[in-house]
């Protein structure tokens, strides 16, 4: 399996296939379906300093080849995570990465400090791109200045691998990637969901309680792939790509466009075993194309 190894900064993943925050719970939700130990990593549910009950129902709408959600970071807070969930998942033979969200820079810093204490969490993913919370969230990810500020503050207190998750709802995602790279981020992950909306023509009402929500799934793949490519051409740090991946070919496309690892999100809902199929599919592709190490395809788009 060594040929599947990739490195996100100093963090080694046994393979490039990881699962996206907010779509994979704490991993245990999928334990019936797959062997979690075969994943490159698990990005656990968005975690905040204080517990959050999330947004009102309805939080979901189906769209062409995708879905909108407005969960709004429902979670029991970082302390609950550390005390009650972490012990249950820490011994899986995969990388547990916590997705850290907040409304203020201070929130992010405190939450990251708490996570830093957890031995078996080698990295955090700083979620500066959640479109579903009223304050902070995506706002941090939509200007270079604020993205840099929060990255700098967290970098100061967090020594392990720091991944910053970028918002696609911007004019120039490469600029933001550069800004967080300059502040010492070890990696960027992209993309989070696109701000979208759905309306019921018959009732004249929005389909989400929050009116707008985050769009994910195969529908966003072409835009996400473009953004990965742009960021790849702008930064030196490794990229974790995602957005609509639903099979091994998609994963390989993201790697060719410059992703060192990939995350699978929404498609886990359609096929809870998709991550294993992608791992196997990548191996099959490498065999067919005589590729020794998966890192050989990263950024190898022939333009």
């Amino acid at each position, binding site marked *: 399996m060594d040929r599947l190894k990739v490195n996100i900064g100093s963090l080694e993943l046994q393979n490039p296939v990881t699962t996206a925050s907010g779509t994979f*719970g704490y991993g245990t939700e999928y334990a019936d379906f797959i062997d979690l130990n075969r994943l490159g990593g698990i990005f656990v549910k968005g975690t905040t300093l204080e517990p959050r009950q999330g947004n009102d129902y309805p939080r979901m709408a*189906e769209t062409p080849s*995708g*879905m909108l*959600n407005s*969960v709004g970071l429902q979670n029991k807070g970082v302390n609950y995570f550390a005390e009650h969930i972490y012990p249950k998942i820490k011994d899986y033979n995969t990388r547990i990465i916590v997705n850290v969200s907040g409304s203020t820079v201070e929130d992010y810093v405190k939450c990251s400090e708490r996570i830093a204490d957890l031995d078996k969490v080698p990295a955090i993913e700083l979620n500066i791109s959640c479109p579903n919370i009223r304050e902070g969230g995506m706002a941090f990810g939509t200007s270079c200045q604020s993205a840099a500020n929060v990255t700098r503050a967290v970098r100061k207190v967090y020594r392990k691998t720091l991944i910053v998750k970028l918002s696609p709802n911007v004019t120039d995602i490469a600029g933001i990637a550069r800004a967080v790279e300059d502040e010492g981020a070890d990696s960027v992950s992209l993309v989070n969901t696109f701000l979208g909306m759905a309306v019921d023509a018959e009732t004249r009402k929005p389909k989400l309680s929050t009116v707008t929500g985050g769009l994910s*799934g195969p529908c966003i793949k072409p835009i996400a792939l473009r953004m990965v490519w742009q960021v790849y051409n702008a930064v030196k740090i490794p990229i974790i790509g995602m957005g609509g991946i639903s099979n091994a070919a998609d994963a390989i496309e993201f790697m060719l466009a410059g992703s060192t690892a990939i995350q699978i999100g929404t498609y886990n809902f*359609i*096929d809870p*075993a998709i991550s294993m199929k992608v791992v196997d599919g990548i191996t099959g592709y490498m065999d067919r194309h005589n590729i020794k190490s998966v890192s050989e395809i990263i950024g190898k788009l022939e333009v």
Partner: protein
Amino acid sequence: MKVLDFTVRSNEQLNYQNNLIKVTPADNGTLPEMSPGQFVQILVNNSGNVFLRRPISINLVDKEKNEMWLLVQRVGEGTRKICETPAGETLNIIFPLGNSFSIPQEEGKFLLVGGGVGAAPMLFLGKKLREKGFSPDFLLGGRSQRDILQLSDFEALGTVYCTTEDGSLGEKGFVTHHSVLQKSRYDFIYTCGPKPMMVAVAKYAHSNKTGCEVSLENLMACGFGACLCCIEKTTRGNLCSCTDGPVFNINELTWID
């Protein structure tokens, strides 16, 4: 929980909008233990518009035949495509999902109230109660006679009362207007159906100090606790109706104030 291909053994159109689909594991494996109130998530084949799976209650488990029954109402493209799956074809299903109705330990008077296709899980529940040696009553409501489904199956399990909005079968009106609710006192009520009906049943139960469980049909993306989209506000906070539910005791819900 498992993801499994099922073979459609039979697919019977019961009326203008409902099909009864009986499926069995394609690999001939034995169906695991399942409980009334649980549901499945069906992958919709051959559709350009349906992206997510569709949740459908377990209507009955026939252990002898190793069959699971699904009662499906065609309301949109997803359920239509499911209903168009002919015998012999495959349906990919995640199952069994969710909690289940609580099964009483002692004899008592139990009422199972189903509205339209919402009656689906009541058949399985009724069978379970019957197996326990109890004699449940059923109260089935629909717009018209043709909307009352699987009547003879229910009658094999207990006494059946019906209401129809047009009076074509049983008493005219909504289920909560049925005279049996005035005459009898029940120890526990189970219900599933359109939300307004369930709220009315819950209010009746509450005001009669009768215990009551409802089965919710909140919108779901995953069905197994991963997305947090299907939440219901409860006294214990926002709970997932796919894992903490779909069955809730009305005391937990915020429907009655």
